[in-house]
């Protein structure tokens, strides 16, 4: 990676948008990442919440500008306003709700068709805490064993209803991990299963995205924008300084 010294000092701003069906836990994922908190029975988001959080990689610091969007149907038409110029997107689904993966797929399609062509998309299956203890899929023994470890820690805090029966919790899973992963690979997405409640996989998710962001292009386009000669291919997509174009206003 050819970093300029400037990059190590000044955080690179990355616009990230969270999309997904209502009640899959988008806000909880963000809350866990930004404040390391979890709040049960969160009220549905209205429109979108805007938050920032720094993400430190080995050689540089990213500053995520996070758009946590509302999942309700009526906000769908406003989504382009939020994902426009985003360099990263986390599409969240609920592993205990099969329909939420279908919705996630349609978001991915929309992003691939209409968002910034270089956008890094991660597919994240949330609510892993509801099915812990279960070897998620064959062939992922490493993940399964770490999930077992989580389980022990989890039992202490989890509500009785959720851990009463192993069989009960297993039956909650509606989206097999390998199915989602196969889809993600095919569509060229990052993929992980996470739990906003326990925090499992959250930081890793955002770090993995950070590693995949084409930082050079962002920096290059910054320089290019300053020089007035933008890289025709990339600049419109990754130009972060594009803040003041009133003509370019409402996309809805």
């Amino acid at each position, binding site marked *: 990676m050819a970093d300029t010294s400037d990059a190590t000092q000044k955080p690179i701003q990355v616009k990230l948008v969270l999309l997904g069906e209502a009640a899959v836990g988008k*806000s909880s994922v963000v809350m866990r990442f930004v404040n390391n908190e979890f709040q049960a029975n969160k009220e*549905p988001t209205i*429109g979108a*919440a*805007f938050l920032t959080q720094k993400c430190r990689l080995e050689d540089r610091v990213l500053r995520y500008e996070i758009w946590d969007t509302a999942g309700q149907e009526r906000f769908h038409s406003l989504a382009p306003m939020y994902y426009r110029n985003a360099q990263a997107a986390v599409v969240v689904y609920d592993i205990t709700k099969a329909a939420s993966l279908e919705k996630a797929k349609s978001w991915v399609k929309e992003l691939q068709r209409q968002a910034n062509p270089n956008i890094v998309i991660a597919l994240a299956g949330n609510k892993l805490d509801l099915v812990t203890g279960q070897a998620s899929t064959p062939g992922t023994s490493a993940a399964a064993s770490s999930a077992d470890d989580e389980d022990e820690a989890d039992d202490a805090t989890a509500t009785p209803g959720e851990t009463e029966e192993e069989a009960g919790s297993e039956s909650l899973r509606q989206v097999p991990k390998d199915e989602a992963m196969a889809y993600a690979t095919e569509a060229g997405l990052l993929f992980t299963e996470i739990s906003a409640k326990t925090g499992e996989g959250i930081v890793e998710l955002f770090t993995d995205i950070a590693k995949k962001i084409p930082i050079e292009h962002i920096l290059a386009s910054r320089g290019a924008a300053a020089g007035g000669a933008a890289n025709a291919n990339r600049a419109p997509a990754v130009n972060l300084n594009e*803040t003041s174009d009133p003509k370019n206003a409402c996309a809805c």
Partner: protein
Amino acid sequence: MASASPAQVSSDQAVTIEPSGVLSSSASISEFSHGGNIISNSHHGSSDHVYLMEDSSGSDGATPNLMRSPEEVAADAERLREQLKKSLSRGREPRTDIRDIPYDPSHEQKFPPRQFFVLTHAGKPVFTNRKIDETEGDDITNLIGVMHALISVFEDDQDKIRSIIAPPVRITFTIRPPLYYVCVTPFAEPESVARIYLEHLHLLILSVLTGSQLERILTRHANYDLRRLLSGTTTMLESYLDHLPRSFAILASSLSTLRLDSGLRLRVADALVPPPNMKTRLKDILYAIVFVDDKVVTIARPKKHTVHPADMHILLATIGSPAVKGSAASWLPICLPRFNSNGLLHAYASYLQLPSNSAASASQPAEAGEAPRENEEDAALTGGTHAPAVCLVIVSASGDFEVVRQWADVATNRLRDGETLRQLLKAAQRSTYSVDELGIPGLRHFFFKSRPNVQVTSPIFNGIEAHAHDERDQVELEDEWERLFNLYRVVWDAIHAKSGQECTLKLQYVRTEAVSVMGWITKSFEIYIALSPRLPKSAAIGAANAVVSWVKREEAKLFLRDAPVF
């Protein structure tokens, strides 16, 4: 029946109502609750006629079941229509009047919870705050069916059903095609007040789904289930419905202003005025507002836009929802129906935190997004349940977030830098005042509306009955407040002649055993005062005058008078 209606008193005449009269006439009203329901409609113009509706031939037959065939439903409707005609021809019963206001603290007179229903013109349920009783099963579907049938029957005759009087409740209908609104409120509450609730419920729904959106969806698919589009708004709707009956500002269609030193208010206003180099980019801005809790501190706006109080209450209901309060900054689509009921605007809302004295403020206080980390550090300063919450709101017609955020950052920094925010938070904690501050003997509470400013002010409520300073628990206090507020509502209704009174009043005086209430309206103000019932009428006038001159002295603090225009 107390038929000599004091509601028809001419202007300037004071009316005294003795508690005995209250009891007797409310007793006579309750007779009807056994015989049947009274229906009033507006068919004959402003003077509402009240009819007795027989409940004899089984209301079951008139209850349309949505599963029935269209023929059966039509037959039901026909039966219902005949039933209504029969009842309407029974002739007119005298309207209830001000003597029927029950005010009896000793009696177990509890206000039943107010119930609200919203349905589409096709009879599909949209929203209700009625708690579903498991044992009653499909109760709400049936209720909605009956409501829809009643509305339709009157609509077929080119009439509109307005209300059903069924003590101890009153059922009020508001038709706002393609939606129908129904509420069940205490009978003692004037119908005009119930209409205000319903209108505000309608406005709040419009703020989520614009008028044109509603029209489009329900024209295309008459049977569309709007609950899908309203999902996630239940909490907001319910808490707004809880708030409605407690808000004098909403009743008086005004803003509630934070009492504040005028210099400090001016500094907040200055912080909101956009810097000259940004002005051209901010042409789509409607308002920039600073609220403390549900009170306005100041509003900056371009010359061409005016502020409608109802829109402000809608805005407050939206930004007050937990989802917005819980995040550092929100960017939300909202329709402000009084501004434009068909257009979607965008609101930036950010609850401002004090900059921490440590590293955070040194590094990057400029970023609104940094707030979440400061949350923790400032919890000690601004935390606690009664800590005032300062919210900066910018409403824009354009969806360009960056422009608004830049301005919001500038405004936020200005507020933080000059210690303005800190002072505002401190001042907000001291902004309430007690009626004792006025030093007017016998005065227990009041509401004052400045008509030119369209703003209200009132002291905190400490109880009005007998020993104002006694220890009493919260429940008693709230019951007392509910009773007093209802007197205010009744007087408000009479003064504005909202219930078909022959003319508006300038002054009305109502006395009960525990408290007397006087309402008085002039060109420049509207005042409602609660007094000790032992105070003679003449003293009431004196007390009202004393409040008015106190308000005049304090005007600069109590009201927002010079809102900045840019």
